[in-house]
């Protein structure tokens, strides 16, 4: 009974598969394909045998048909026997609505063809119905679905959660036999996946048949954990124990050959203008050499910039319509659909995307993928590269174009890892209370629950298996208004809870409507429009958007860069920032990096190791070292030389930090500002945790706010005052096991915490995004969230929304576990510390100093700050 298995499956034979297929299906299949794909050999039989399975295979390997072939076969057999019932047999879930549309078409077509074949053979067959249900679905279509349920339902995680609380449609879901989760790699590491994991258990709860779970994934690691995430646990009534459900893993990765290389456009020392020129000449050359090129830029603004530059520099080639297109999430769905359509028709020469084309939407034939700037993780790099040569056996050709020397090293090691097929591991969030709130509410709508029964349901999800009962009770206490005092309870309670019977249920008739309009976990980010106020001839021109948190940093007269142009901030009005577009001064405030992806920990370690291997060889002649780099990284002469030069400068000028040696660099600028630079190349998530904890201790010792600046390669702490950074760091290392306690206090006043609190307040239904037919702007939500935070924290620190925000910041935004690992390695002397002083930031420190993500650790009370500011101007006032 307790034997649990996550087992790798071996491919079956074509004959075996053919033997199970219905005659018409067989005919159809071989009229379309020569043979089964490798993925199909792995996946079709287990699904036919109703075994849970996770199929990991590259894009274009026939994953979807693998998942559906057995199911369609089963449905056709039933349809021929006239035994198809009016119920949903299979649910297909994908994170993307665009993908849903693709799948719909890709199912309708074969079903139609099969029907025609059957007709030719004079076989009478029932219709097999397929339908999409997402937030785009018209209510008339939903009504139709209710009367005649689709046999295959295509949906998103959010819409699935909605139908699970529907009054009537839920009846059609009580005997679902198959559940397919597509693009599971895009779900497992975030709250959408956590949300789905509970929906799947809710589905299981109402099912008379346990549905087979099928997960489809691109490159991802570790597969075992993702498999556990897919299947969860079953509860044994007799033994009162939880057992991991069985799951097979079909690892069909790496069947697709990848051709990857790093390209350097210039030597990084020329002036910015010339570098840009060379960069775009290289991009243009590559585009011209290929049929269709897909460029990834990481950020939306980057996407726009690339297009603008290409058009400006090569108007003849790119100004023409239908040559170049942008695809990113801020563009309208119509625009994106249009671009996808043109790609499929082979009409576009080049498309530039931020991240949105990573997932498996069908985009036709691409023969080159350009990665402009590091994708920050091996799996993402593979995912992107895999968009080239969409057909399985075509070589996927990808080229990194590096923008600076850190980028050069990072991408070179990434290319090495891709060649060696070593993927970085994802982390699956656990025990998210905000998501739990939504499902408690959703189930309270369905029926009256005993807490223990619900607790069992929740514990079956892999993401909540370790949830403590108190945590659930806390969530129920919050939702039933118990935090708010008796007289006000009626206003805030969304459910009722009876302590005697330990039961809970819904309170109001509006509950279902409120649930449906507020379900989901994707936070809305708020952007402020940047609008020209001066000069008059450009008045009211919208030049772009900035992050709302960035606006908070701006003061009147600040000059910032947006889309390659400078603007002076004048004033804000609602969600608009008004600027002067004609400015000559240099920028006064660094750009905002919240859009940037963090470097994966595994990749960071790989780079650190490489640094050590190079340092060990630094005393040898240049040629020998370059040769080593070439062999180690499978890279070109050009790249190896550039890396050598970079490392040599650091070696000569300062000290090369690596996985066994942490370099702490102290430097004082001309104006007397002191910098303590920590060369902690562990990725931004770890550095976020380390830097904030350290800054907090420093600030507490010195009673002053401390400026910190973070990037993937390290961080600095800076101040005009003399700070006791060494002492604070020693304290931190000594007490590494208590890092999370320091951080819980340290993060509370950060921008990140404020923003995440808003997201969580919305997800926990403390702020209803949509209420009584009205939808709130994000700006409003943020303002209200700040007021809300001040109020609820005065009530209790155990308030679930606060608890969840802390968890999210520590474990999802930051990486407190790996940060602890780093500190413990220092404490145990596995990592040695080397302190150096430099007259200028060392080459490796350069990017940390000029391009990091600036933040402030507040410790000074606002009244203390006010008094200090008052003292500053007191003299001036007295003069008069």
């Amino acid at each position: 009974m307790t034997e649990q298995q996550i087992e790798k499956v071996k491919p079956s034979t074509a004959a075996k598969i053919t033997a199970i297929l219905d005659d018409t299906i067989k005919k159809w299949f071989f009229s379309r394909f020569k043979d089964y794909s490798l993925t199909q050999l792995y996946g079709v039989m287990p699904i036919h045998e109703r075994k849970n399975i996770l199929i990991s295979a590259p894009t274009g390997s026939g994953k979807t048909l693998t998942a559906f072939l057995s199911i369609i076969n089963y449905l056709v057999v039933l349809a021929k026997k006239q035994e198809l019932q009016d119920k949903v047999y299979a649910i297909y879930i994908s994170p993307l609505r665009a993908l849903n549309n693709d799948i719909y078409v890709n199912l309708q077509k074969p079903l139609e063809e099969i029907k025609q074949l059957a007709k030719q053979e004079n076989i009478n067959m029932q219709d097999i119905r397929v339908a999409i249900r997402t937030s785009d679905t018209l209510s008339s279509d939903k009504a139709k679905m209710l009367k005649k349920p689709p046999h295959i339902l295509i949906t998103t995680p959010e819409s699935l959660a909605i139908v699970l609380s529907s009054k009537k449609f839920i009846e059609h879901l009580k005997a679902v036999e198959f559940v397919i989760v597509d693009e599971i790699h895009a779900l497992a590491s975030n709250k959408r996946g956590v949300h789905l994991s509970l929906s799947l258990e809710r589905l299981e709860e109402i099912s008379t048949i346990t549905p087979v779970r099928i997960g489809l994934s691109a490159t991802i690691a570790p597969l075992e954990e993702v498999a556990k995430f897919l299947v969860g646990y079953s509860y044994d009534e007799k033994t009162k124990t939880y057992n991991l459900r069985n799951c097979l893993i079909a690892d069909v990765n790496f069947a697709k050959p990848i051709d990857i290389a790093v390209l350097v456009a210039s030597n990084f020392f020329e002036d910015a203008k010339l570098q840009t020129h060379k960069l775009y000449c290289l991009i243009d050359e590559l585009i011209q050499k290929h049929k269709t090129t897909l460029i990834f830029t990481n950020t939306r603004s980057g996407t726009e910039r690339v297009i603008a530059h290409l058009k400006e520099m090569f108007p003849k080639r790119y100004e023409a319509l239908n040559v170049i297109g942008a695809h990113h999430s801020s563009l309208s769905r119509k625009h994106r659909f249009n671009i996808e359509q043109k790609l499929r028709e082979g009409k576009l020469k080049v498309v530039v995307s931020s991240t949105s084309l990573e997932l498996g939407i069908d985009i036709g034939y691409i023969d080159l993928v350009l990665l402009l700037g590091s994708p920050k993780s091996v799996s993402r790099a593979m995912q992107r590269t895999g968009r080239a040569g969409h057909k399985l056996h075509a070589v996927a050709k990808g080229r990194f174009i590096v923008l600076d020397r850190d980028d050069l090293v990072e991408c070179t090691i990434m290319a090495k890892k891709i060649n060696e097929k070593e993927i970085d591991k994802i982390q699956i969030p656990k025990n998210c209370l905000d998501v739990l709130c939504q499902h408690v509410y959703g189930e309270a709508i369905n029926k009256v629950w005993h807490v223990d029964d619900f607790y069992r349901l929740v514990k079956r999800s892999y993401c909540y298996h370790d949830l403590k009962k108190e945590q659930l009770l806390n969530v129920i206490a919050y939702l039933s208004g118990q935090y708010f005092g008796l007289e006000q309870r009626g206003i805030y309670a969304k459910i009722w809870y009876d302590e005697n019977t330990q039961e809970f249920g819904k309170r109001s008739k509006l509950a279902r409507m409120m649930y449906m309009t507020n379900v989901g976990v994707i936070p809305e980010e708020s952007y402020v429009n940047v609008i020209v106020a001066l000069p008059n001839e450009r008045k009211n021109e919208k030049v772009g958007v900035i992050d709302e948190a960035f606006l908070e940093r701006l003061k009147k007269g600040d000059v910032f860069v947006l889309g390659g142009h400078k603007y002076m901030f004048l004033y804000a009005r609602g969600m608009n920032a008004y600027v002067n577009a004609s400015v000559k001064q240099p920028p006064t405030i660094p750009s905002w990096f919240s859009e940037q992806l963090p470097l994966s920990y595994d990749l960071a370690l790989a780079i650190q190791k490489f640094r050590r291997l190079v340092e060990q060889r630094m005393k040898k002649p240049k040629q020998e070292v370059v040769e080593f780099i070439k062999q180690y990284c499978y890279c070109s002469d050009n790249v190896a030389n550039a890396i050598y030069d970079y490392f040599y400068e650091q070696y000569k000028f300062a000290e090369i930090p690596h996985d066994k040696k942490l370099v702490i660099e102290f430097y004082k600028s001309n104006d007397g500002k002191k910098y303590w630079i920590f060369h902690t190349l562990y990725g931004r998530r770890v550095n976020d945790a380390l830097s904030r904890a350290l800054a907090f201790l420093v600030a507490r010792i010195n009673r002053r706010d401390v400026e910190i600046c973070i990037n993937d390669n390290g961080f600095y702490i800076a101040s005009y005052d003399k700070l006791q950074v060494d002492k604070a760091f020693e304290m931190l290392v000594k007490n590494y096991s208590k890092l999370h306690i320091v951080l819980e206090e340290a993060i509370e006043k950060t921008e990140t915490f404020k923003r995440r609190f808003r997201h969580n307040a919305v997800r926990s239904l403390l702020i209803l995004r949509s209420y009584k037919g009205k939808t709130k702007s994000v700006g409003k939500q943020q303002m209200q969230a700040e007021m809300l935070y001040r109020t609820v924290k005065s009530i209790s620190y155990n308030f679930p929304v606060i608890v969840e925000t802390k968890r999210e910041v520590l474990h999802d935004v930051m990486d407190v576990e790996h940060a602890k690992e780093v500190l413990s390695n220092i404490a145990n002397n596995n990592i040695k510390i080397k302190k150096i002083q430099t007259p200028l930031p060392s080459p490796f420190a350069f990017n940390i100093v000029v391009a990091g993500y600036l933040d402030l650790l507040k410790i000074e009370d606002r009244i203390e700050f006010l008094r200090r500011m008052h003292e500053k101007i007191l003299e001036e006032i007295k003069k008069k």
Partner: protein
Amino acid sequence: MDLSKTKIFEGIYIIGKALWLEKVKILVIADLHIGYEEYLNELGIAIPRQQFKLMHEELKNLLNLLKPKLIVINGDLKHEFGEISKQEWNETLAILDLCLKHAKVVLVKGNHDTILEPIARKKNVKIVDYYVVDSIVITHGHKILNEFFDKQIKTIVIAHEHPAISLREGIKVEKYKCWLIGRWHNKKLIVMPSFMYIEGSDITKEMLLSPFLTKVNLDNFEIYIVADKVYKFGKLKMLRKKGIV
């Protein structure tokens, strides 16, 4: 809150968020926006209600300390958004009762006060568009009337703006409620902060609301910040020069 007096003109004092006309013993407060939390609740935000308790307490302390003859509530006693709930009605009455226990009350009409009439009638309190005492006119500030240009009027007290100011040092920013004292058409202009427990809008970057302020240069206005007590900060242009706003 420290309730000591800060003199701004002869006989005119700032005490926290309230204005005190000492000779005539008049206390002026503004923009209480009773019911603001209910309004948020109506929007679907489960914010617990604390404002009333805090404001009631602070007002009681002021009244006990100053023993005014007259209390002028300079607009937006109540945050208005359609139907009035029993609780808001009770809270509004409780604030009025507290005031009436100590002194007479005049309500200056604000832009949010369109349904104040029944409450005022019930308590027999006057509602006016502005209130004149000596050479001072007290008005909410959402519109300019011809009477304000009268030569006899030397000082105008307005509210409505909910002024606040952000102080900066490097990348640190903190926002505080503030008073603005300056000139308008050769008259003294006093802009009051709101009495409610929300900071208000940052005068250094948000567009101003009151027609009294849209055409003046704020650079020459004196700033008084209200936090645990009142801090005189001098002219805005000086703060700009010093780089702290």
